């Protein structure tokens, strides 16, 4: 078992009477790529700032390799941060930005030269040493910031939405790059994002946060396949979330049909939330389906079609490679292991219905912005 490097114990933090982090407990392990995932304003940056030493918790403890560091100032923590908007020093060139933490520690000249050069080559910026940081592109500035925060060999690197400002293509490349750097250096990464795809593809552990509370901690597969509640199910990937009743272990009833499933351990006739992922539903002739419904919209997405089906007034999303037509009556077939049962939570009923979902709005706004050009 890997050793714990950071432990957060019952952390609470408020600003102006508004609770921003509510009883957060989290263990971060050595060598791990951990992602804090959640919508804007849920407290991700605040959590990073607590670990970095820029805020102190109102209640609870932060331990670093077992020692309490609640009041330790940032410069004494063996933790570095890549800030949400890089924060490169405009009065220093690329080399001096990266050399900054080493000069502070009075590292000998040739060692600085060697370590900075090595870092710049790792982030593919060899030859940029004398350039002004203000003359670099967003992606290049980003890589300088990463080199600068790794050159001092911290035990933990905190990254606050480091890829948010980059375009999609560059972003994908940098995701790979970051993952590679993390593997190569063995530094623990605590990575913040509100992009669920980014979180799924990069992380060893994902921590899903909403409204200052941890909703679920788990691997990418865990949070995708076994979401704890409706919030997680909706936030990570697409989900149809419907009300159901657990009739017995491995038997659940929803949308007017009783299904076999693989979950158990609920009370008899307990009300539950049922999650079915859009890609796990098969379209079959009407008479062969567990459920039947009417197609209300079909959108071509490249690899698959996104089909919205009205089943007794509830709109389901289905992803399929088979073409169906609007107004067609179809049957839906759902395998037992495609059904995931969750306990009811305060998020029940808020998510998972595609009634208001429409690609038409996207198309309309796209057309408008093209006309502007």
């Amino acid at each position, binding site marked *: 078992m890997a050793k714990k490097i950071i432990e957060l114990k019952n952390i609470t933090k408020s600003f102006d009477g508004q609770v921003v982090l509510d009883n957060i407990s989290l263990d971060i392990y050595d060598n791990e790529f951990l992602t804090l995932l959640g919508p804007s304003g849920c407290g991700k940056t605040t959590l990073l700032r607590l670990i970095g*030493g*820029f805020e102190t918790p109102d209640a609870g403890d932060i331990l670093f390799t077992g020692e309490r560091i609640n009041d330790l100032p*940032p410069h004494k923590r063996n*933790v*570095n941060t890549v800030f949400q908007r890089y924060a490169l020093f*405009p*009065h220093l060139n690329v080399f001096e930005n990266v050399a900054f933490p080493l000069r*502070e520690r009075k590292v000998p000249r040739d060692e600085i030269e060697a370590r900075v050069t090595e870092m710049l080559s790792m982030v593919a910026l060899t030859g940029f040493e004398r350039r002004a940081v203000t003359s670099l592109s967003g992606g290049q500035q980003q890589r300088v910031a990463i080199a600068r925060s790794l050159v001092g060999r911290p035990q933990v690197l905190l990254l606050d939405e480091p890829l948010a400002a980059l375009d999609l293509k560059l972003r994908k490349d940098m995701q790979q790059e970051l993952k590679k750097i993390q593997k190569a250096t063995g530094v623990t990464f605590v990575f913040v994002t509100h992009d669920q795809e980014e979180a799924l593809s990069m992380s060893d552990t994902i921590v899903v946060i909403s409204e200052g509370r941890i909703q679920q901690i788990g691997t990418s597969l865990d949070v995708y396949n076994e979401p704890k509640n409706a919030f997680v199910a909706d936030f990570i990937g697409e989900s149809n979330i419907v009300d159901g009743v657990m009739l017995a272990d491995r038997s659940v009833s929803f949308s007017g049909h009783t299904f076999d499933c693989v979950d158990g351990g609920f009370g008899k006739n307990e009300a539950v939330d049922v999650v079915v992922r859009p890609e796990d539903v098969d379209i079959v002739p009407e008479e062969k389906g567990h459920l039947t419904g009417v197609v209300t919209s079909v959108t071509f997405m490249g690899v698959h079609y996104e089909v919205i089906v009205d089943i007794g007034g509830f709109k389901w999303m289905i992803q399929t490679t088979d073409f169906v037509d609007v107004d067609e009556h179809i049957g839906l077939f759902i395998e037992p292991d495609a059904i995931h049962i969750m306990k009811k939570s305060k998020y029940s009923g808020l998510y998972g219905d595609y009634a208001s979902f429409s690609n038409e709005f996207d198309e309309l706004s796209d057309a408008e912005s093209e006309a502007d050009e």
Partner: protein
Amino acid sequence: MRQEKKSRRGSLVTGVTSAPYELWAVIFILVPLAFVAYYAFTDNAFRFTTANVARFFTATSSVTGADGDPVQTRTYLVIAWRSVKLAVIATAVCLLLGYPLAYIISRASAKAQKTMMTLIMIPMWMNFLIRTYAWMTILQDTGILNNFLAALRLGRVHIIGTQTAVIIGMVYDYLPYMILPLYSIMAKMDYRLIEAARDLGCAPAGVLRRVILPLSMPGVVNGITMVLIPSISTFYISQKLGDGMFFLLGDAIEGQYVAGNLHFAAAIAFILMVALLAAMALMRHLTDKYTYGGQ
């Protein structure tokens, strides 16, 4: 196509809108300067002469030396040296007081910043004669300061008529001109850079030396320029607070002018101006070369 038309229109627009500034500069800067130069290089009959300028460098007077014997000194060079010395000291004091003050203000809440900046500007609204007289009443041997010290049984200090009094007067007059440029650059400074420096291992002193100071250098240069130049040519303060013991270039110009020696007064002013322009040019050059953000 479209761009070409735009840029032509742009140059026309800037041409028209910048004309008033050029006119302004000619009327209020160049014409007076030309007059100063004209007077400096002419005699009472307005014939060309270099005698006025030469007199500045050659005039001598006799003072009592350290051993009691009279010594010949170059009158105006001594005054010029004294002016520069006092101005440099006053500027240094302004910088030492103004820098931390500007930093503290720039880090306060928006409301506190406004209040503090207003407090700093208020003395500038008062006539400088009144400010100088106020300092006289404060610093006199029987003035407010000494009465206060006496009341605390701390004894009395003799300040009025000393170099210290002159410097206090100058610092008080020019401190706002130091704080303003410093504050405006510090208020714009990105706080995240300071956090980044802390994150990368800098203790507060390191943050100041390696990030805040270099980033505020243009403000330091501007502040020094704004204080040094008026304090070199200042007058009256030294007459009132220095008891006439610290005759400065500004006083010399005023004295010659009042005595009716317009041409010599102009010569002193001209020499001072050339020296200041040279100093400013040098300062600009050094700023461009050695600090980030110099124009």
